[in-house]
């Protein structure tokens, strides 16, 4: 029963209670946390495996490693994807040796001897072909899909790596075996071809997209020390040189029980499922939680900017350093983001799109490029034809000034709180969305209940909080901006870059 006293404003305690009754958490001996949440609407379940490590944990010089490992996690195990693992392992060791020989020549300061390079490259290609003989390509994914996996995917962020899919409920045990297998028993199969695939992913997301290129420079400029400034997919010279040995070292260090939460939501019977899940997921190695990344971004003391001149259309973005998600003001940033950006009632829409009519789109958003460490609150705007980035900048600054000098209205603040509550409620009927949220909140706060308790924090945000935070954070010396200034094409030439 959701509604009480005819009011929809269900207290968060009520939602929490109904959830607590069907949600169970178990921490295994190896430190891995299992969450099972029952929802018996249809004979299906969804899961999320949440690893508390992402590209922020990539070692220096190995940017893109966490993401590269995520690709590897689909390549199978010592039992899946191979015709003879013992022989394959020997062949894979030879691939590593051949790659090492090639790369050490290639990376010589003088550029390596050409003839020697060709020989080493040929040896490397041959070793890969040798190892490939034992491969059953894509078998891991094929088993999952032949058993009805839906929405199978993974994503690597700066802070975390997530694996997920949905399946018919009668495949729960099959899934548990598969998922625990790849967590415990990853094999660096077909690594170097997958590295080429990731290079293509980079070309698609970053290099061939004007805004993609700009955003990469934006983050790189905003940060001088913290890895949030690094390209999340990896700089070409780094991600292009990552080795299988490095990927497996990352796996050994970060894919330990204490770093992993697995959440299952759907048509599952907790009583019978939990012991079964425990049996399988106990295979994941234990060990201490890896030490946190300790670099702290020093305080910015001067405004920085990136200006890209090219033939694509203009664009403007600016960001301000803000504290991490653990800061008590975290929820105040959510309120600011909502009031500035959410829908046609938002301030940026009403002024820049509707009233001044200078932008096609204008929004602010919080927690970029991650949340776990101090990150950025950013504003961006897409100018209408005939308008330019400096007008966007000015209009955004006017809105920021208003936030600093005048209280937001009662209606705006109330709207933020109402929408936060409704959005949470709307998400409850989506198995995959819930699995993601439960795993994320359990990881970040050590308790999934925070997902509901967060609403109480939202309810406590005041107008004074918003002014205080805006005045503290949105100052010029804390700002980094980036823009595309459109250059006109040279007369009918192929020129440009």
């Amino acid at each position, binding site marked *: 029963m959701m*509604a009480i006293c005819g009011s*929809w404003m269900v207290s968060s305690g009520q939602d929490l209670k109904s959830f607590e009754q069907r949600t169970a958490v178990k921490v295994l001996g190896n430190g891995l946390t299992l969450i099972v949440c029952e929802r018996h*609407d*249809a*004979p*299906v379940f969804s899961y999320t495996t949440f690893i508390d490590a992402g590209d922020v944990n990539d070692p220096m010089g190995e940017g893109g490693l966490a993401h590269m490992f995520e690709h590897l996690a689909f390549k199978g195990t*010592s*039992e899946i994807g191979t*015709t003879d693992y013992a022989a394959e392992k020997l062949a894979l060791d030879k691939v590593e040796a051949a790659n090492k020989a090639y790369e050490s020549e290639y990376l010589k300061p003088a550029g390596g001897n050409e003839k020697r390079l060709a020989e080493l490259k040929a040896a490397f290609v041959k070793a890969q072909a040798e190892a490939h003989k034992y491969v059953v*390509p894509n078998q891991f*994914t094929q*088993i999952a899909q032949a*058993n*009805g996996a839906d*929405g199978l995917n993974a994503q690597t962020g700066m802070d975390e790596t997530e694996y997920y899919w*949905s399946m*018919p*409920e*009668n*495949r729960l*045990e099959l899934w548990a*075996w*598969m998922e625990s297998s790849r967590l415990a*028993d990853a094999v660096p199969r077909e690594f170097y*071809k*997958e590295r080429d*695939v990731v*290079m*293509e992913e980079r*070309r*698609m997301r970053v*290099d*061939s*997209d004007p805004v993609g290129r700009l955003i990469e420079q934006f983050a790189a400029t905003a940060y001088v020390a913290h890895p949030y400034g690094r390209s999340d997919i990896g700089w070409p010279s780094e991600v292009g040189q990552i080795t299988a040995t490095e990927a497996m070292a990352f796996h050994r260090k970060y894919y330990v029980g204490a770093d992993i939460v697995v959440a299952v939501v759907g*048509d599952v019977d907790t009583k019978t499922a939990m012991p*079964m899940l425990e*049996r399988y997921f106990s*295979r994941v190695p234990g060990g201490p939680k890896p030490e946190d990344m300790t670099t702290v971004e020093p305080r910015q003391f001067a405004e920085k900017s990136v200006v890209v001149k090219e*033939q*694509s*259309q203009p664009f403007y973005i600016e960001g301000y350093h803000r504290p991490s998600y653990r800061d008590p003001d975290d929820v105040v940033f959510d309120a600011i983001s909502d009031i500035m950006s*959410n829908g*046609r*009632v938002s301030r940026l829409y009403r002024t820049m*799109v*509707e009233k001044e009519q200078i932008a*096609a789109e204008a929004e602010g958003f919080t927690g970029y490029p991650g949340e776990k460490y101090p990150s950025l609150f950013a504003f961006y705007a897409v100018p*209408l*034809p005939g308008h330019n980035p400096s007008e966007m900048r000015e209009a955004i600054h006017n809105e920021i000034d208003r936030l600093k000098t005048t209280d937001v209205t009662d209606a705006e603040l109330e*709207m933020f709180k*109402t*929408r936060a*509550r409704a959005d949470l*409620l709307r998400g*409850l*009927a989506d198995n995959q969305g819930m699995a993601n949220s439960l795993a994320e909140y359990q990881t970040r706060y050590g308790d999934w209940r925070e997902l509901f308790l967060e609403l109480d924090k939202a309810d406590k945000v005041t107008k004074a909080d918003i002014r205080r935070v805006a005045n503290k954070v949105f100052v010029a010396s804390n700002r980094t901006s980036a823009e595309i200034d459109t250059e*006109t*094409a040279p007369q009918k030439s*192929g020129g440009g*870059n």
Partner: protein
Amino acid sequence: MKGLSLGLCASLLLPGLLVAQQSKPWEKIPVPRLHEFKPQQPQRIELKNGIVLFLQPDHELPFVSGAVLIRGGSREEPPDKAGLIGLYEQAWRTSGTEKMSGDAMDDLLEAKAAHIETEGDEDSTAISWDSLKDDSDQVFGMAMKLLFHPSFSAQKLALAQQQESAAIVRRNDDEDGIAARESAKLVYGANSPYTRQPELETISSVTVNDLEEWHDRTLKEKLIIGISGDFDPAAMEARLRAVFEVLPQVTPEPKRHDEFTGPKPGVYLINKDDVDQSNVQIVALGPDRTSPDVATLAVMDEILGGDFVGRLFQKVRTELGLAYSVGGGFALPYDHAGMFRVEVLPQSAKTVDATKAALVEIAGLNTRPFTETEVKRAKDDILNSFLFRYDTRDKVLAEQERLEFYGFPADYLETYKAALEKVTVDDLKSAARKYIHPEKLAVLVVGNESEIKPGLEALDLGAVKNVDITIPGTHDASGGAEK
């Protein structure tokens, strides 16, 4: 299914890591019988004027949502007003009604975390709403006012025109967008109802009067109304009848008869200086969903273009490492011929290699025999995940609305599933003969010509034809083709 021994005790299998190689341990894991499941079908009510209602109660959460689906979309726009529907979908909602402006509506709804939105599509437009249960009467009332008494405003139309013009001048910044749109033009023709694009000139010629006429005209056709969520069905039915049964008999629209000739085979190039990856589209004309071969084609799509499992993925991504993104198949729209499309995104220098590899896989549908294993796997993929087409009440409702809209039988999913189960290797062979014609394919490459080495001549598909994508009315510099 997979030779699973249901009685086998799971504990015998553990720890899995010690099991001998090639033992396929996953086949020994019990797969019990799936829990009994009968998806709840929405109640269908046909009013005497021809309007159809669907009611799909769902009391899990205290929300009610609904939509009115209206026939007619961008394919019916006058060509000299291309973009009309894009403007209509914005201006309808942002204008609001005579009594309540769109802005006032926004304030009222957002304070309740409720929504009313209008949208436009290729063949339909719609108004939808959603709110908490306690607000649902009021929100429904507002939505009905917007449906029957909109007040299109010149000012909001101008705003929509500005937004649209921003999209037009930016359209050549996006490599994927260029590839999708220009390849469709090759298949359907540049000025077909399915591909003509809004231009600065066509959108600026749209007037408030055009929007009003469109609205009044399409509202006379058969409306389909769907409601889902936490409501009482009897009360809701009465409420909907009161609003919709008073409307005149619907006037059925004439059936469309679109004729397309398909692309002129060959290689087409759009040069874009600022990219280092090519977007390659290999396209042809395909059938629509009334084809007797849809189930076979769906299995063939999985074999050719399925993620991870398909021949293209296996060859071009896994084996050759030439692309992150590769795949494709037949689109099978409900009421007009669809596109066959294979897409591959390789780095510039590998464009020819990747395109050739993809062409080999397409031609291979006729020359490389389908194996029983391959067909079984493709069918397992589709059939074992079939459940996800109706695992929520909203999905079941949306499917019924879709079938009603296109005049397909209500049990279409069941017959389609039965047909999928029956697909054989021989079916695939004859479907490939019937629908895969390598000599009729057009290849479009959007990429950086100076980096594409060897050049596209190396594909041996004849002279490379340059496609001009200059945006009329701008000094387009960002993506325009060089002559």
